[in-house]
């Protein structure tokens, strides 16, 4: 046996010290969304034909742009970044600020830049240098059903009238958009804000959110949901959900990006779709949030020339056309908007050009992720109903102001200013103090039960152990599925049992999400408590029980006078372990809710992680970690003290 183990170890060491060899070709990797329609496959294929010594690897990643941004950030931080950086328009500032990008003037001198839409080019600049070549442009657009509404609304009031007249919930709503707490929400929100004449920053770059316009915009968004012009579930929708909804004919209008056009025209709704610029208040400009994607080169890339060549190809008219026809992407080259082939397929592009020329970028700032996070949180809070528009506007303004200033403050001062910190601490405390006692209660009952001598006892012990052995992150996916609306089992069971009349959207409601997280956590970690308590129960000599029963104690009295006191050392161990684990919970929440909705399940560890990896504040994050650890240790001592019986403390 020893020889076998030794050999195995040797093989492992070999494997590990020498990583799997890489081919000698030049390989450039990039991450993008799932390549539906095969546009990228074709582009990459054609490039390979003409450039056989370069290999491009397109890695499909999650649909959520936030997650892909995280993947890029992590890859940069790891020192082995993906060579081609397929960037959303809002990532440029941050990536450039960190020095992760290579300037692209070599391949895109100013003359070449002229060929593209001005907004896109502007978005590719940071502090005067050009980092991101636009691949596809994007702007928020209002889709509407030509067959159901005579004319698209232009103002907010017209919108309201159309909804009142033509919508018929729940078969058909007025509008569907992206209301989940993520980046897309900010895009939607800004269109209302700008449509009301407001803005995030004023001309001097100062925060300008405590304004009437902001309140009006938020009130209007809320009204849309309250009046049932949009379905309540819109607060869980991202682009693909709203598209699916609209495609099934359940809404008169949809706010989405231009890519949807192609998909809708391939569906039964073909011919009945119209596109318009977004609604606004009378007298104000119609606004559209600039989106779009571009390619950059990682500075650590060993083959910038090859990368540059690929980017040139992707931004060429040929490739842009492929993207358009196969993917429905909006090109960024001005010339393509007057191209015959394109206009034949998409005549609306003439109008779209107007919209695109006036699309507005989101605030350009290296801290944009943080800014976006603050905006997302507050808007989501309004939509969900836990904050009023006035409160939200004040909160946004304060937080944003604090953020832009607070970076310079000392850490100790930040402890009092950091509202994210306070929120996450509250969530963590709530979570811990709800989860641990429940586990104990349940665990004690189950341990007592399994302790009874009966035939299936071992089977019971094995069964009980299983939840603990399964991977948390993986099971969190299962829980997501079980709490799903409408396909979730939990809703089904509750409805059949009569506890619920209609399916409840657990993960979209702050309370519901917290409950789901608690349920999943208790399910998983109760076994741990059970094992420890079982060991404790088994350690009580049978004679003590017998003696006590001879002395006249029935089962309940025996429990309180003997079992419980003798379990104390075990309870102590279990409580400490559980409390620390609950306070430090990450896996479950990250996968299940990512901290949402409206930050209601965001615990401390999630915040610390974001601080380090997304907001780039490693120092502050470690500082908080240190404090947190100290608190945990102190708490452990306190518990140990509090839960030790006198007889344990006395020595011989």
């Amino acid at each position, binding site marked *: 046996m020893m020889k076998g183990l030794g050999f195995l170890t040797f093989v*492992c060491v070999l494997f590990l010290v020498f990583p799997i060899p890489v081919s000698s070709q030049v390989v450039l990797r990039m991450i993008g969304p799932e390549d539906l329609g095969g546009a990228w496959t074709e582009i990459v294929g054609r490039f390979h034909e003409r450039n056989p010594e370069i290999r491009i690897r397109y890695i499909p990643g999650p649909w959520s742009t936030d997650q892909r941004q995280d993947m890029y950030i*992590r890859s940069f931080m790891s020192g082995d970044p993906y060579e081609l950086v397929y960037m959303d328009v809002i990532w440029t500032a941050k990536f450039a600020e960190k020095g992760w990008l290579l300037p692209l003037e070599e391949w895109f001198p100013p003359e070449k830049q002229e060929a593209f839409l001005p907004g896109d080019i502007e978005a590719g600049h940071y502090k005067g240098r050009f980092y991101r070549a636009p691949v596809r442009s994007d702007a928020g657009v209002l889709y509407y059903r030509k067959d159901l509404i005579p004319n698209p609304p232009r103002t907010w009031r017209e919108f309201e009238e159309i909804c009142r007249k033509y919508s018929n919930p729940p078969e058909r709503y007025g509008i569907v958009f992206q209301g989940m707490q993520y980046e897309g929400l900010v895009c939607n929100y800004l269109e209302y804000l700008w449509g009301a004449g407001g803005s995030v920053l004023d001309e001097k770059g100062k925060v300008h959110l405590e304004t009437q316009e902001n309140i009006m915009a938020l009130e209007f968004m809320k009204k849309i949901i309250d009046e049932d012009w949009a379905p309540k579930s819109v607060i869980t929708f991202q682009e693909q959900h709203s598209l699916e909804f609209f495609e099934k004919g359940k809404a008169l209008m949809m706010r989405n990006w231009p890519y949807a056009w192609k998909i809708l025209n391939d569906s039964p709704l073909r011919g009945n779709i119209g596109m318009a610029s977004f609604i606004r208040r009378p007298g104000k400009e119609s606004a559209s949030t600039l989106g779009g994607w571009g390619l950059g080169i990682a500075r650590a890339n060993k083959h910038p020339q090859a990368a540059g060549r690929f980017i040139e190809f992707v931004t060429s008219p040929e490739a842009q056309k492929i993207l358009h026809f196969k993917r429905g992407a909006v090109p960024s080259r001005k010339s393509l908007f007057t191209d015959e082939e394109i206009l034949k397929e998409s005549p609306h592009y003439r109008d779209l050009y107007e919209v695109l020329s006036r699309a507005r970028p989101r605030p350009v700032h290296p801290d944009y992720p943080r800014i976006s996070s603050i905006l997302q949180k507050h808007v989501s809070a309004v939509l969900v109903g836990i904050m009023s528009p006035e409160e939200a506007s004040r909160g946004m303004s304060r937080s944003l102001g604090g953020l832009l200033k607070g970076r310079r403050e000392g850490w100790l001062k930040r402890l009092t200013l950091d509202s994210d910190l306070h929120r996450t601490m509250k969530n963590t405390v709530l979570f811990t103090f709800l989860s641990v006692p429940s586990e104990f209660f349940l665990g004690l009952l189950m341990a007592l039960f399994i302790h009874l001598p*009966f035939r299936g006892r071992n089977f019971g012990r094995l069964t009980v152990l299983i939840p603990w052995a*399964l991977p948390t992150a*993986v099971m969190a996916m299962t829980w997501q*599925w079980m709490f799903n609306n409408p396909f979730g089992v939990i809703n089904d069971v509750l409805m059949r049992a009569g506890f619920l009349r209609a399916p409840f959207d657990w993960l979209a409601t702050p309370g519901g999400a917290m409950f789901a997280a608690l349920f999943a956590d208790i399910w998983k970690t109760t076994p741990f408590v059970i094992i420890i308590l079982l060991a404790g129960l088994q350690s009580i000599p049978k004679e003590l029980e017998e003696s006590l029963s001879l002395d006249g104690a029935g089962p309940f009295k025996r429990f309180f006078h003997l079992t419980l006191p003798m379990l104390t050392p075990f309870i102590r161990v279990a409580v400490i372990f559980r409390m620390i684990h609950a306070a430090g919970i990450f*896996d479950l929440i990250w996968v299940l809710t990512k901290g949402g909705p409206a930050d209601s399940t965001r615990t401390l560890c999630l915040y*610390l*992680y974001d601080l380090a990896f997304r907001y780039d504040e*490693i120092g502050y994050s470690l500082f908080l970690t240190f404090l947190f650890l100290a608190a945990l240790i102190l708490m452990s001592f306190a518990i140990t003290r509090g839960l030790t019986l006198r007889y344990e403390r006395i020595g011989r």
Partner: protein
Amino acid sequence: MKRAVIYFLLGLVFVYCLFPFLWTILTALKPQEEVFKLPIRYLPERISLENLKSVFYKRPFARYILNSLLVAGGATLFTLWAASLIAFHLRKMEIERSLKIQRWLLIMAIVPPALLVIPVFMAMKKLELVNHYLGLILPYVALNLPFAIWMLHAAFRQLPKELDEAAMLDGFSSLRILLGIILPLSRPALAVAAVLVFIFCWNEFILALTLMPSQMRYTVPVGIAMLSGTSVYEIPWGEINAAVALTTVPVILLMGLFQRWIMEGLTRGAVKG
């Protein structure tokens, strides 16, 4: 009568513990249309393996499994070696001193991994071990050592010191004593420790997510978490459930095989603790 109540309660426990897992398997075996049918059907009308197949097709899932095996396997082996050596040495000491050392080790083990990610990441980056198997294995070994030492130490102590003394008189060196006598006699404890460490590494998420961010290096839990939201229309729940089932079935099998030993090992350890 009493027996009926007990079996009923046992049934409840069974349902409570296993239902999520069972539901996952049921969903995984349904063909695509059935997964999204309302009202929900519990048993699939038609059993289909298409979800399982597409899991491997859409993503390099086989690669994920390989990664997980390498990391978990490697970490388990290294942990066991190191823990054996350390526990062997602890065994020679007087018991109070060894217990004190063990207690300190355990204190370090309670720290939730989520708090350690950042410093570990930075350290691994300095060592240029990010995206490298060793970069994940080393932290895993560190995290699991206290527990493994605890278990092995308890098991080693059960063996009387006289064995060592007899062996020394026979001319064995310390290492031979460990390899030839102590380890073979502690097989149950070794098995339990190995299984538990392996399961921990297999299930671990946050360190794997951060230290091996390259898609080809994902471990299975990370791979599954990143499966979400990959399609325009729908989240591929059929496939996700298939992937989950693939991941969890081996764990459950392992547990079933080693169940008795695991319970013994854990309870014995808990008493000492």
